[in-house]
């Protein structure tokens, strides 16, 4: 086990190097002069030259890359052109909102996804099963941001029971996160329906389930106590990986619902051509993604003793 974990961590090194090269090149290949973008057009060539030197932009590529890596390793993700603030500080300010949104989306997606998935597996080929399949297909076909707008329309004009934008002030106000969470989580929910269904179908055909039934246990106990435990292993793995994916998907949802998280920060940076912020957010999310995947793999190995890795 320890050997597996060490090997898995070592495998990350080339991936993280690759990520840093990709994000560095993005910045290096930006069309236009970064100094001009930063200071505006009406600056004397002498100032431009000074700033360029100050930022180390007159250095060769390789030197700049090593500097970039070094800074990133120390938590320095560059500075915003527009807000003249450290990107890492901006990220720290925005993380709570994105984290709350992602958690709410995740809870909605897993709860409903698993329940519908189980229902559809237990009543295979029934009306509910076909409905669940169709439901799952709508989930992967509907644009998240459009779903968000439709929810705003429905709740803003007709239902008026949940707020349709903003965070509702300081702290965590659950009601403000329900609609965005639903919009963001819907596609994942559909995926959990399919995953739970196929995993459940596989498990309930196994011998130990037949034994449990033969002992005279009620159907409900067999399903929720015996079958679900094993059927949910792939769901748990997927949920871990999905978490980071949802953070990436939050870009559109946060923009629609005016939530000031990492997603809207990225959106604003894109529309204002604030490249260091785009670069910083991309690097940060990719790193989160990689670390979460690592944790999922390790916990998977720990949780399921049937899996042997060496």
């Amino acid at each position, binding site marked *: 086990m320890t050997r597996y974990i060490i090997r898995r961590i070592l495998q990350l090194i080339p991936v993280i190097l690759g990520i840093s090269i990709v994000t560095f090149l993005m910045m290096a290949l930006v069309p236009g002069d970064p100094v001009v973008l930063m200071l505006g057009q009406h600056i004397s060539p002498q100032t431009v030259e000074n700033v360029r030197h100050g930022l180390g932009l007159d250095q060769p590529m390789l030197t700049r890359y090593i500097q970039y890596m070094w800074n990133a390793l120390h938590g320095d993700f560059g500075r915003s052109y527009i807000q003249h603030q450290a990107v890492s500080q901006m990220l720290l300010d925005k993380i709570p909102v994105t984290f709350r949104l992602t958690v709410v989306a995740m809870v909605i997606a897993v709860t409903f996804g698993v329940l519908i998935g189980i229902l559809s597996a237990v009543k295979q080929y029934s009306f509910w099963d076909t409905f669940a399949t169709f439901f799952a*297909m709508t989930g992967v076909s*509907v644009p998240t941001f*459009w779903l968000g707008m439709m929810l705003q329309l429905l709740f803003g004009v007709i239902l008026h029971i949940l707020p349709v934008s903003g965070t509702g002030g300081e702290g965590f106000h659950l009601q403000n996160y329900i609609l965005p969470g639903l919009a963001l989580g819907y596609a994942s929910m559909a995926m959990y329906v399919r995953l739970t269904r196929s995993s459940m179908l596989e498990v309930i055909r196994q011998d130990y389930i037949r034994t449990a039934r033969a002992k005279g246990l009620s159907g409900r106990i067999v399903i929720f106590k015996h079958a679900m435990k094993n059927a949910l292993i792939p769901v748990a793995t997927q949920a871990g990986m999905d978490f980071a994916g949802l953070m990436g998907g939050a870009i559109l949802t946060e923009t629609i619902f005016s939530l000031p998280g990492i997603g809207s920060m990225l959106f604003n940076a894109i529309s204002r051509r604030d490249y260091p912020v785009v670069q910083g957010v*991309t690097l940060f999310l990719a790193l989160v993604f990689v670390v979460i995947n690592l944790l999922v793999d390790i916990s998977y190995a720990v949780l399921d003793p049937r899996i042997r890795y060496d």
Partner: protein
Amino acid sequence: MPTNTDTSEIKELYQTSSPLHDMWVRLKRNKLALFGLFLVTALVVIAVFAGFIAPYDPVQISLKESLKSPSSAHLMGTDVLGRDIFSRIIYGTRASLIIGVVATSISLAIGVVVGAIAGYYGGWIDSIIMRITDIFFAFPFFLLAIAIMTFLGPSFINVFVALGIVGWTNYARLVRGQVISVKESDYIEAAHAVGAKDFRIILKHVLPNTLAPIIVFTTMNIGGVILSEAGLSFLGIGVQPPAPSWGLMLSEASNFIFNAPWMVIWPGVAIFLTVLGYNLLGDGLRDALDPRMKQ
């Protein structure tokens, strides 16, 4: 000497055992898949005949018609510049179809070549290629597309490039896995024995046997690409105005959700039905091409 009846019987026998025919027979039984096929076909027909179907010029601005609600003159209403939304949606099928097909073809071409090389040769070539795909997989799909678009600059062509580049890794992994699984078969060994060259073996013997999962994945990938294009255009870094793209229409509509809901509803319905069509068809093809894959 064979008579006429004999040949027709042989023909019938041959036809019923052809994999393509079997697939069609199985696909026909699946109502959801047929609905998907219908949606996709309808989309292609609309894209081809957009000029005949659309009642107005999709980019014609007419400010005195601004923000009109749906009526017999404008079936789905008009947008803020007075353009007919129905016509823009009809023409929008072209943008989404072209982007879906071209971007997917780019991913497919790169992915199949790279995946086949990795799977067939193995060893260090395989290791390097797989590490590269690992790096691509380290980015959430949409985020990487956004990053590439930001730095390439927004344009129609760049949407192909960005989505094409982001998507190839899936194909590479899929093809690699398939190639590894057929590479050890007897018929490949036989091809080696008769002295066939590597390139010929990959092209003629290995790839045809990896076709089924590739077809399924491609169908669903087109849907995914169309969704991503809508997202990119919505963020303002995809297709540029005044082109009629559904994502762009939604972006322009986002400030009018409550004043002009028709601007928001219809482009979304169009995206949804299109992507749903590809997904249902892809899902049906999966069951039809390989019954063993069905749960």
